[in-house]
């Protein structure tokens, strides 16, 4: 078994190296024939039986994709060499370095046929422009239309910030503690064995309030003020408040429990017929 794992590691490393090699050919326009495709394919084939997990199979597929693009580059290379435009770059570079500026320009002028472009105002366009000018409103009038209304600035009061939901009227921890006390009261009143049905606790008169109570309940559980008891077979969720909140946050692995607070579910628990 360890031997198999070791072999897979070697295979992964080899495929990564092949991908890097292909990338450097693709990106730096190196000679694509630097890569021996047959050799690379033999390597890919050799390690293919080792791949079991999807990540390895993806790596294998990516290697094949890069090889395909190198083969495409090789075919383009051959095509280019067979065209009349092909010139040995070294020969040309040598020529370019040796030639005088004047000679280079002479060659270029022989092959250069610049585009002819004209820029000219016509009577027609002048007439159109005058027409436009006449219909254009003076700046004073145009700016008046789009001028922003003046808004007086002043200090915002705490009450205004609370109304705009920028500030809460109570500190969050204070609100959470109140909510926890309410949970304990409701459990003592309507619950059994120190716990109460989750939906009985969170259901309120409006859907918004119910969602807010569910949100606060999630914090009670996360911060260790209460715990959830889930009975999957009965499809029941109970919430059980602790008598005292833990002094330190728990180091236990926390688990997320998604609970959908849909309008249908809220109406059902509120005792109203669902639409």
């Amino acid at each position: 078994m360890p031997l198999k794992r070791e072999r897979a590691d070697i295979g992964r490393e080899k495929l990564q190296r092949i991908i890097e090699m292909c990338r450097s050919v693709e990106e730096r326009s190196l000679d694509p024939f630097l890569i021996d495709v047959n050799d690379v394919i033999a390597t890919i084939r050799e390690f293919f039986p080792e791949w079991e997990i999807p990540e390895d199979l993806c790596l294998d597929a990516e290697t094949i994709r890069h090889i395909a693009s190198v083969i495409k580059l090789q075919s383009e290379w051959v095509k280019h060499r067979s065209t009349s435009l092909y010139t040995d770059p070294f020969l040309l570079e040598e020529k370019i370095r040796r030639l005088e500026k004047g000679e280079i320009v002479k060659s270029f002028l022989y092959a250069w046929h610049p585009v002819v472009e004209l820029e000219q105002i016509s009577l027609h366009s002048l007439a159109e422009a005058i027409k436009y000018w006449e219909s254009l409103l003076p700046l004073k009038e145009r700016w008046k239309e789009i001028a922003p209304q003046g808004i007086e600035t002043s200090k915002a009061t705490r009450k205004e910030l609370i109304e705009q939901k920028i500030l809460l009227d109570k500190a969050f921890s204070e609100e959470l503690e109140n909510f926890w006390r309410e949970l304990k009261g409701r459990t003592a009143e309507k619950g059994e064995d120190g716990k109460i049905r989750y939906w009985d606790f969170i259901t309120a008169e409006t859907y918004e309030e119910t969602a807010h109570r569910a949100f606060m309940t999630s914090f009670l559980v996360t911060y260790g003020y209460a715990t959830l008891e889930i009975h999957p077979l009965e499809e029941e969720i109970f919430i059980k408040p602790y008598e005292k909140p833990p002094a330190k946050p728990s180091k236990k692995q926390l688990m997320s429990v998604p609970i959908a607070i849909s309008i249908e579910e809220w109406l059902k628990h509120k005792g109203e017929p669902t639409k």
Partner: protein
Amino acid sequence: MSKRKAYYASKMKRAVHMLFYRRHKKPGVKGWELRKALGADYPKVLKILDDYLKSLDLQVKTVFEEEKFKENPTLEDLDKARFYVTLRGELTPKEAKMIGWRIDDLAGLAITVAYIISKRGKVPRKEVEELLRDKLPGWKVDINIDRYIRYGYLTQDENEQLYLDWRTRAEVDQKALIDMLLSE
């Protein structure tokens, strides 16, 4: 003037307006635009115009989408192609200077274009800079390459690779340039 002659004369004038005056950011007109303005027989109108321009040392140049010359293009190829009016013959060095090119800048452009052609149309900018620095002052090399890019002779990707752009394809006879350079 016969009806037929008058018909083509008016179409030719319209084609001249479209081809000589820049309508978009880039000069030139797409085939489909000419078809819309001149009708389905616009290739014939362009042919007549090209014959007419011969005496003025100008020509109608067709640049196909795949950048390769086509012996017998289809109507679809022509619709997708871009048409320009270019100089038919050659400029003298003196004339080139008159249209705003210094000999150094033109030589730099010639070297860059030839080098990119020889490297199959794609070259790292650094290599071109090195090549130009051989004969141009260092501070000018960067400015010149940027200028060639701005004019549409070259284009550059995010990996600083240089390619030939639309203006080189429209203006430069690539094969003639390479042949000339090698025969010098």
